[in-house]
């Protein structure tokens, strides 16, 4: 009866350890994969600069190039964003006037319809020294651009050439070799790209030097992306960049965003680590005390066996066999229960920890800039999107991000978990056995003649 109790308590402790171990593993794997997927870039924008809605003093090429000398920096991608209004270019924006306004302002009575038709949308022109990655990163809000036709320009080019997004190309019937005008110059389309986002596919990419000349913004840069050699160096380089540029620039690494996204995961990791060790220590203490109790209770039996001529090792062997049976039974039951419980326990931990922190990352990094840019480009009465709409959108983006991060936690039992559990069970059994051995050896056979 008591043995069953010991096995059950042991099983509970081991089940708890196992599910904590699995939860910890799952969270750890997720943390590592999130870390690995965040990349190694740091975004530098002039202070107070959002997208290309203006504000702040542009950075200079000299300042930004200086960042290349920092330790662990492998490249600095620079870009200068300008707007091409209908006065500056022959191109027409593919974004229907007021369409975003309607989207954002839809709930605003009488919001968009009056002014929208007469408003002309500006096209974003990005000068870049890193064609291929110009749209990547928070401020420019796109993916890697892939050429669907034509060829790219050289990073140091100052020719009047352009890569145009496929949405813009379709709208203006542009092909490789077509020309258009911008700031009074004739520009030749050398390639058409797809970056995976309609906004970014409505942009024009030109060599940095060309845009600096055209826009009379010689030596100016509105966005720089610092590429770091290793994820682990991102935070030190972020500090170095901040120190180098001082108050002129906003320096954001994806790491900051990721850190706040990872915060709930990290706290789950901490909780599960503490619970894990608590459960292991608990299991060990339970077995120790039970063995002590069992041997004490059977003191007389041990004395009788000794009086019958049983050698110590035979009695010890019998008790070790019993404690091993407890441990093995408890471990097997605990292991199975632990594996079954690991998934619900992990999600319970996740929902308990993520509620409190999911609001924080909603205002950080790319999401905000992205939404701001979108709002501007929507034009019309959507120029100033109702805060509710904007935040909802930003919120969705990030809430989606966080919940996605957490719900895609996969619990799985790795071989290291198995080995760890096996070692724990062994250590606990050894502890329980040594307590039994110490007590058994100390029982004097003559005790058996004493009446109780």
């Amino acid at each position, binding site marked *: 009866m008591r043995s069953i109790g010991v096995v059950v308590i042991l099983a509970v402790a081991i089940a708890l350890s196992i599910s904590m171990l699995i939860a910890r593993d799952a969270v750890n794997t997720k943390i590592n994969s999130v870390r690995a997927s965040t990349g190694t870039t740091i975004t530098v924008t002039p202070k107070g600069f959002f997208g290309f809605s203006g504000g702040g003093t542009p950075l200079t090429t000299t300042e930004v190039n200086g960042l290349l000398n920092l330790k662990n920096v492998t490249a600095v991608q620079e870009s200068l964003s300008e707007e091409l209004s209908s006065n500056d270019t022959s191109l027409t924006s593919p974004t229907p006037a007021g369409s975003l306004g309607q989207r954002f302002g839809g709930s605003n009575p009488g919001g968009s319809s009056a002014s929208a038709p007469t408003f002309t949308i500006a096209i974003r022109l990005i000068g870049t020294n890193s064609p291929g990655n110009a749209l990547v990163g928070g401020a420019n809000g796109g993916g890697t651009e892939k050429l669907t036709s034509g060829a790219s320009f050289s990073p140091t080019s100052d020719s009047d050439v352009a890569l145009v997004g496929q949405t813009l190309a379709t709208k203006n019937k542009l092909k490789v070799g077509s020309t258009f005008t911008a700031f009074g110059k004739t520009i030749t389309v050398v390639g058409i790209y797809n970056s995976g986002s309609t906004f970014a596919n409505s942009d024009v990419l030109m060599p940095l030097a060309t845009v600096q000349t055209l826009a009379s913004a010689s030596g100016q840069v509105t966005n720089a992306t610092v590429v770091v050699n290793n994820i682990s160096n991102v935070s030190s380089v972020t500090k170095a960049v901040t120190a180098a540029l001082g108050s002129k620039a906003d320096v954001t690494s994806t790491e900051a965003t990721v850190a706040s996204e990872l915060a709930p995961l990290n706290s789950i990791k901490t909780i599960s680590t503490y619970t894990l060790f608590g459960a292991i220590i608990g299991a060990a203490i339970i077995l120790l005390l039970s063995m002590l109790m069992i041997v004490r209770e059977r003191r007389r*039996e041990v004395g*009788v066996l000794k*009086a*019958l*001529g049983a050698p110590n090792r035979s009695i010890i062997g019998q008790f070790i066999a019993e404690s091993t049976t407890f441990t093995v039974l408890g471990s097997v039951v605990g292991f199975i229960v632990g594996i079954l419980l690991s998934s619900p326990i992990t999600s319970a931990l996740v929902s308990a920890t993520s509620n409190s922190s999911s609001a924080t990352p909603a205002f950080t990094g790319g999401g905000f800039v992205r939404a701001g840019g979108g709002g501007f480009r929507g034009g019309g009465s959507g120029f100033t999107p109702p805060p509710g709409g904007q935040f909802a959108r930003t919120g969705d983006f990030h809430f989606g991000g966080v919940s996605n991060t957490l719900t895609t936690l996969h619990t799985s039992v790795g071989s290291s978990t198995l080995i760890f559990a096996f070692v724990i069970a062994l250590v606990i059994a050894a502890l329980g056995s040594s307590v039994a051995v110490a007590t058994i050896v100390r029982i004097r056979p003559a005790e*058996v003649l*004493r009446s*109780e």
Partner: protein
Amino acid sequence: MLKVENLNKTFHTRAGDIHAVQNVTFSADNGEMVAIVGASGSGKSTLLALLGLLDAPDQGSIDLDGVELANLDAGGRTKYRSHQVGFVFQQFNLIPNLSARENVLLPLEYARWPKADRVRRADEMLALVGLTGEKSERRPTRLSGGEQQRVAIARAFAAKPQLILADEPTGSLDKSTGQKIVEILRSAASTEGATVLVVTHDEKIAQQADRRLEIDDGVLSEVA
């Protein structure tokens, strides 16, 4: 033949030294049943512990069939005990999770009897004490006190020891059952040719023994 000479055992306690066994000298023949009587605390159990090699004497000699046992170390005492000594206790002290037969098999295992002979010997001993058939499969809790003590006697004699030590074997039994148990002990002693020492408070039981020894404050004397 058991020859005990000048045996001494002193317990050193905080309250002072207790001379539990003092200069005890006596002998007993094989097949003989000797009663040991004495007041509570007079040293009866201590003497049995020394003779049964459960404890080491401070001084003196224990000679069993020409072998000196008083100077054995713990390992030697354990080994000799398994071959040469059988115990019967007041509280029966059967192993609770073993059947009657398995209890009788234990000393045969410790004395390293050939496996093939063990069950036959156990059943022979159970038959000798009058426990047959289905009862030998029962656990101790399903046997009466008298039956448990029979199993204990069978267990004590099983490995053919020279010396059987019984510490108040009837103390937990009613009078008539106790009588029966002493008769069984006595007949087993002569059948097996072992020396039996019985500690008892019961005058009637003491009278059934071949001889009587009395112990008073650790000092043993023969009663005529």
